[in-house]
Structure formats: structure tokens, C-alpha cells
């Protein structure tokens, strides 16, 4: 490995806007991009802003765009990058900038609150507990691996290019809704809201979200498409609609 490399890190300006600032720094085997950012912070730019917590890909704090690819900085090893060229590190572009690599992701927390909360069926056993088979929860557990890094939100073109933040909740929150909908104990119905308020129709299944998910959640195939199917069968499938008319 080469002993020194150049990193171009996005620095915001106090008045707005920003530019890349180049740093040359020592690198060694096994380092990840977050280590580099920390080293620069300790030695050259103490006011460089970055979010991180676990340094192990578990908390979803350190999301950024590395050479243009949405990644976790703590899980991107330098050995995966071409260090002969400068490496660019910039914040997620879909969210408003706060400072340097830190963005305002509060929108994600706000829209999540708009999803109807978990509502379990009455307990199965007299001691107030439920019985669930492992195979019936495997799918939900896949969704619950989500570390809320918001990288999927970052790449989704509906948000990134079309800024439909008010009409579309994005792949992360759709996955949250899917986890509740497919929870074996849950009784709430979120399908009408998926169509009416949460804008599931905006997703045109490009699968960009799935590609960047560091938890390898099959967001599109396993969460969004089944939700879309439920919407379709509820609102557009003639047989179901007829049945619903008779029932009501």
C-alpha cells in the first residue's frame, strides 16, 4: 500500500455552499475511510464535522458519498479504493447540509411518525405472551436489520432528483411500514395510507436503494413490491373490490 494518499473532503462555508478541500495524509493497511477522516480531524482540521458512533457498521451514523458512491465510511476499506487518485468524500446529497459531512436527516424521523404504530392481536397464551414460528418472522427480521443509515433514501431518485419529500416516504420508511404490515402479530391496516399519503406509487422499482443497503436488505423485492401488490389487490383487483362491496 502507498504510504500517503490525497483525500478531497467536502467543506461547507459558513454562509452557505461549499468546496472540496484536499488533504494529504499517511495511510496504512487495514484503514477505513472514517479512520482517515479522524486522522485529518486530529492533525489538520479539528473543526471538520463528521458523524459516527460504532465504527462497525452497526449504527448507521457515518453515511457519505465516497468517490460518488453512497457508503458507510467505517465499512469502506482503503484497499477497495484507488489511492493513486484523490479520493472524494462528500455528504449525502439528498439531505440539507449542516456542516461538512454532516447533513440534516430529521425529515426521516418525522415521516416515520406518520406510519401507524404496531398494534398486536390479543395474547395467545394466558400469561400474556404470543407464539410465533421462526419461519414466519424471518422476513420481518430481514427488515429489522435496518440501521437507519438513510443511504437508500439518499440514492432514491424520487427524493434525490425530484425532491418529493412531502409526497413520498422513501425506501427506508417503506421498509419500516412493510416490517409492521408483515409482522405476524400486527392488526393495523396501513395499505390505504401507503397509496394515499405515503406515495408508494412514486417508486418505479429501479432497485437503486437495494444496491446501496449496507445491511443487504432486499428493499425493493421483499418490502416495496409486496406492499405495492397489496395496494393493487385492494384497490384495483376487481374480485377483491367486489367482495369488499358485498362485505360492507
Amino acid at each position: 500500500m502507498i504510504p500517503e494518499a490525497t483525500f478531497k473532503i467536502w467543506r461547507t462555508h459558513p454562509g452557505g455552499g461549499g468546496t472540496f478541500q484536499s488533504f494529504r495524509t499517511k495511510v496504512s493497511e487495514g484503514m477505513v475511510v472514517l479512520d482517515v477522516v479522524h486522522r485529518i480531524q486530529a492533525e489538520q482540521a479539528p473543526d471538520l464535522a463528521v458523524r459516527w458512533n460504532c465504527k462497525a457498521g452497526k449504527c448507521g451514523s457515518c453515511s457519505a458519498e465516497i468517490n460518488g458512491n453512497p457508503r458507510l465510511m467505517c465499512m469502506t476499506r482503503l484497499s477497495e479504493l484507488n489511492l493513486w487518485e484523490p479520493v472524494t468524500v462528500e455528504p449525502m446529497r439528498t439531505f440539507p447540509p449542516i456542516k461538512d459531512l454532516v447533513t440534516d436527516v430529521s425529515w426521516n424521523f418525522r415521516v416515520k411518525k406518520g406510519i401507524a404504530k404496531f398494534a398486536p392481536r390479543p395474547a395467545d397464551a394466558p400469561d400474556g405472551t404470543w407464539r410465533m414460528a421462526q419461519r414466519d418472522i424471518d422476513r420481518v427480521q430481514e427488515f429489522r436489520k435496518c440501521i437507519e443509515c438513510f443511504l437508500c433514501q439518499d440514492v432514491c431518485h424520487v427524493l434525490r432528483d425530484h425532491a418529493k419529500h412531502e409526497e413520498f416516504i422513501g425506501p427506508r420508511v417503506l421498509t419500516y411500514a412493510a416490517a409492521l404490515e408483515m409482522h405476524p402479530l400486527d392488526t393495523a391496516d396501513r395499505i390505504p395510507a401507503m397509496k394515499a399519503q405515503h406515495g408508494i406509487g412514486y417508486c418505479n422499482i429501479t432497485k437503486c436503494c437495494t444496491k446501496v443497503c449496507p445491511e443487504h436488505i432486499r428493499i425493493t423485492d421483499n418490502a416495496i413490491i409486496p406492499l405495492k401488490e397489496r395496494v393493487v389487490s385492494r384497490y384495483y383487483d376487481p374480485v377483491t373490490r367486489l367482495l369488499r362491496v358485498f362485505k360492507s
Partner: protein
Amino acid sequence: MPHDTYTYDVLIIGAGGAGLRAAIEAANGGASVGLICKSLLGKAHTVMAEGGMAAAMGHNDDRDNWRVHFADTMRGGQYVNNWRMAEIHAKEAPDRVRELEAWGAVLDRTTDGRINQRNFGGHRYPRLAHVGDRTGLELIRTLQDHTIYLGVTVHMEHTVVDLVLDDGRAAGALAYDRERGRFHAFAAKAVILATGGIGRAYKITSNSWEGTGDGHALAYRAGAELIDMEFVQFHPTGMVWPPSVQGLLVTEGVRGEGGILKNSEGRRFMFDDIPDNYKPQTASDPEEGWRYVTGDKSARRPPELLTRDHVARCITHEVKAGRGSPHGGVFLDIAWIREKMPNAEEHIKRKLPSMYHQFKQLADLDITREPMEIGPTTHYIMGGVRVDGDTQMSAVPGLFAAGECASGINGANRLGGNSLSDLIVFGKRAGEFAAAWAREHAAPRLNQAALDRLEQAALEPFERGAEGENPYMVQQDLQETMQALVGIVRTESEMREALERLDGYKARASRVGATGHREYHAGWHTALDLRNLLTVSEAIARSALERQESRGGHFREDFPEKRAELGTVNVMVKQDTGGAMQVSRIPIPPMPDGLKQVIEEQKS
């Protein structure tokens, strides 16, 4: 002048498992609740917990019940625990875990559809409810997703710099927000500290940047007492290579699933040193150990699952004796189970998915094929704010503490899995009693002048600017000192040396500088954290000097044995009126006969 003032019945500092559980209970108790955390919601240290939470539900072995769990916790803690807390914890953990399921948690199942429980060091029966090796994520997300519908106000990325008192009673806190660097005052009738641990006082640690002992230091400065600060848990298995991930945790679940420890000679050294009081419960050969981890109820556990302090010292011993691995650790091998199971690879990936990824991505190593290299890492502090076992209130009226920053339940050594259950058991209690306290007391007054002084002090690094010391360098030196001189193996002369150096760092910390704007300024934040790191480091060193024996997580080379007369006391530190740290020994109240009996009956 603080930018604005928020007023709540109950103010909770910290949004890990303990803080969130407290928030739920306080809100359900009718209190208005404000919750402050240094990071974004859901990112607290709790998210990193892997192995599971201990609760004697007896799903995988119906011989388990609260009595066994209580006895295990006391034995693990070497009997200097707060027995009342150990009792409450053992009795209430099952309900707290079940309740998570009612809030949407999706824990791994047994074949009959109940919550599955796994083996862990020091627990007699399979007791840890879990989700693969990401239990902390499941816990924090469940609590977070439940809390957001309760009307709790969350102040994310705010850091409390000090508590404020009114006539000796908790009245609120002063915090700055990271985004702007502005100060905000919080007024509350009751304050709950749930700030987690102190791992960042050491160089090699599994803790995130948040673990700077803030709650410990805030409480101390407000006049509360800290106990058991000498008891720091060094987890036996942290990554040792590559250097940038040194200290990162390798879950005990690896050993729970059959992982074994070997030295460079290929010897399974844990069989060589089994403490007498654990002999009756430990496997006599590898075959029995394997039967145990695969669920044979007649088998006893392998020595890899002895308590953490013991395993960590055995590893240190092997390394010192020159039988370590190439990067200064020993080998942890789960790949060997291929000999035993046809589908071992799938099994490992399913049971330990994040360990598999962690090694694959960060060390280029496939744990289903090769052994890992591991060594001890600073993981957890048993010591913390001294609280009442039932209510979690400290010596400062209206100030409560729960979770890792509180002390008592663990004694000299915490059993794996007992922290997550501690968070929900005592988080709930803290929330409940803080809400009750708030109902019974009038609103305190915030002393404006005191707030202004605190704000001024916090801004001093900017006045010194570039002339000041680099805070990162002071922090690094402090971490090296604690690692080298107050680590796994301690002696008086080294600790005296550490205290001297800490004095020097204190002087340097008072000269640190920061330049530029206050917005999201990591250097300035590090400068402010130093004060807390220094306080907890001094508390650890002074308490460790005072305890002239070896017990649990605390090992003295100059006093390698346990001493009976120290088995009846806790070491306590408190700030005296002159601002100096005072150390004393306080007697542990005698245990009621009923509990003594439980311990006796479980000794066989």
C-alpha cells in the same frame, strides 16, 4: 445567556436502552418528558450490543428461574453487588422482555414458538433472549419506535455540560446543540441520568466516542456519590487486527455457539486454569463442552464461558508467556465446528451474521474457515452513580440514574447479557419513580447566574484559540496512561504514577483551545469531554488503589488474592467541599436470610 429554556416534569439525559425505557415509563406516568442525547435517536451505544439480554424465562431449560439468575449474578459480581438490585433485576427481567414483544420486538424463536434463549458466560442455563447477534439494535429500535408515539420531546445531538441544582435538589441542566453550538437551559422537577459508560478513558475499547463518562462526572460534580469505580470490565474478545479496528467487540455469542480459545501452540488453554468455585459447573473435557453448547442439559459449560474477568486474564497470561497470535492476541476459533456439523458454514452465518460480516469486511477473514485473532478490550464499567435499589434515586434529591452509569447490580463483574436487561428493568423503575417525584414536588428555580457561568466556562477554549493545547493530544495521552497503568493488571506504584500524570493532563485540559466557528465543532466537543474523562479516570485510579485485593474485574498484581474484609464494602468517591476527590469504604448492608438461602441452595 442560554438561547432558550425548555421545561419538563422529567428530563432524561441519554437515549440508549435505559433512557428510552425511562422515557416510556415517565410518559405513561403522566409526566411531560424531555429526552436529550448526544447523537441521533437510535444511535446510542445500546445499538451495538450483540449477544442478548438475560431473563430467567426458562424457555430453553425449565430449571431456570429468578433464584438461579440472582445467584449467578451475585457469584459473578463476587458478592459486592447491591443484592436488592440483583434481586429486583432477576425477578423483573422476564416481564420487561415480554413487554418488548408487545411493542413489536421480533426476537428469535424456539421450536415451540416462544422467545429463544442462548447460553452466555456465567449464566447457568440458556438465558439470553436475542436476535442473531444484533440484539441491541432490536432493543433500541423497539423502544425508539414505541417512544415516538408517546409525545416525548427528543433533543437530538445536544450535549449536557452540567447539571444545575436548586437548594441541593436537581433542577435541570445546561446543554449545547452540536449543529449550532448554542446553549439551551432545561428546567425539570426530576432528572434521570442514562448516559452509559466510560470506555473512551482507555485506548483500546469497544465503546463509541459517546462513552466519556459524562453522567458519572455530572453526578459527581452535582454532589452525588460514585461507587465501585475500580471495577472496569475488560471484555476478553476484542479484535486486535487491523489496527484501526483494535478493540472492536467480538461477541461472546461466538463462544456460546461453540467457539474455542487456542494459543499459538494450538492448545485450548482455558482448560488449564478453572477457578475452584466454578469447577462443579465446568466441563471436564472438550467433548462435554461441545455437548453443552449444542443443548445437552446433562453437560456442563466449556471453560471459554467462564466469567469475563477470568477469561481476559487467561488471555493476557498466554500473550505475556509468549504464546500469543501474530498481532498480540490469541485465537478464537468457531470454524472448527465444521468437524461436528455438516452445515457449519450456514449455521455460523445464521447465528453470527454481523460477526461474519465484520471480519469479512474489516479484516478480510472468513470466520467459517479460519480462526480470529482476539484480545481484551475495555468494555463496560460496573461502577457508577450510587442509587437506591428500588427507586434509582441518587444522594441528590430528584436526581436519578439508570443503566450503565448507575452502579450496584453488577458488583465486581457483570455477566454478559445482564446489561440489556438492567437497562429495561431499572430504566423503567427510574422513569416510574422520577414521574412520581415530579408529581409530588413543585418546580425548582433555575439559577440564571449559574447557567451563565457554566456557559462562559464552556466557551473558554475559543478564547484561547490556536494558542491553546490540541484537545485530541491530551485525550490520547490520557487514554494511553489509563491503558498502560490502570488496565487489566494493576499495581500501586503504577497507579500512583497514573494519578500524577492525570494531574498534568488536568493542567493541560485547562489550556486547550479551539478555533473557528462553533457549529458542529468536533475539536471543541473533545475539549469539553476532557473534563469528564479526567474525573472518571481519577475515580477509577483512586478506587483501584483503595481496594487492596483482587476481585472480579479488578486485579492487583501486588494483592493477587481476595480478602474477606474487603468483601463486605464498596469503595465510594465523592467531591469534598474544597473540590477534591474523597475516597472512603462503605459497608454493604447485610443480606436478608431469604436471599442468603437462595445463594446457598444454588452453590452445588
